């Protein structure tokens, strides 16, 4: 698979996160604080992103393969189960404690922010813990099932 194109995807994603305010935890916490002085700005991030992505996914759904020839890796999981809800609950609590979700946390390393780096290290440790916890025999191509 192409190794250059994803760099620019990451770059564009990160510039969007910086422009939107998502990379600033105090802004994120102000969005999540319905009981205080609420800053609804970040709802507009999701609106803008979904508007573009919605069109792109409609176009992709009608194509046999991506432009690079790589097949589409569509998520295959459908179940709304305890893993999905439990994992999202844990994630939401961590997000609410710090104000960082994975994309902005990784981008914040680029601000040379040591606290963001510490958060990302802990996040990677949490992922490694999961990999150990889910050390069931993995099947080739199992990543196809991931949602993102």
């Amino acid at each position, binding site marked *: 698979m192409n190794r250059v194109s*994803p760099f620019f995807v990451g770059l564009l994603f990160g510039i969007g996160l910086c422009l939107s305010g998502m990379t600033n935890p105090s802004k994120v916490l102000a969005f999540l604080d319905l009981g205080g002085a609420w800053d609804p700005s970040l709802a507009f991030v999701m609106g803008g992103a979904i508007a573009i992505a919605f069109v792109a996914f409609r176009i992709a759904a009608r194509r046999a393969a991506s432009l690079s020839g790589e097949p589409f890796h569509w998520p295959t999981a459908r179940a709304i189960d305890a893993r999905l809800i439990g994992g999202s609950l844990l*994630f939401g609590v961590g997000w609410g404690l710090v104000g960082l979700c994975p994309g902005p946390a990784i981008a914040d390393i680029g601000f040379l922010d040591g606290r963001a780096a510490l*958060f990302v290290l802990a996040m990677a440790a949490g992922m490694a813990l999961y990999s150990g916890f889910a050390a069931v025999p993995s099947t080739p191509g199992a990543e196809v099932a991931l949602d993102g």
Partner: protein
Amino acid sequence: MTIDWTHFTPVSAFAGGLLIGLAAAWLILEDGRILGASGLLGGLIPPRAGDWPWRASALAGLIAAPLVARFLFEPAAPSIEATAATLVAGGLLVGFGTRLANGCTSGHGVCGLARLSPRSLAATATFMGAGFLTVFLVRHVL
């Protein structure tokens, strides 16, 4: 509910959102992949032969973004109030939780909702609800 109009930035938030959407559009149309930050990093733990280079490349672009953004506009430096212990606890929860749920704000919240996935809608409603509740408890109850 009081709205904080002084910090309300709908235009830059929406414009940033458009760029995030464009990044997701690019990755699916050009490379056939769903954009998700937790999946990008989680797919490297452990790394798999043939699969890790594109993930590392995308993560490098993400980390380079604040440096490049400085040439385009003045990005707000992150202001992180959490203590080191909270950062570690929060990071562990976010890392473990997003892998268990197979996605985060980008994979479920943007791409999943844009694909009209009921699974992603359930995930997004759950992590946003948990986020709202956590901030409420931390700031107004505890």
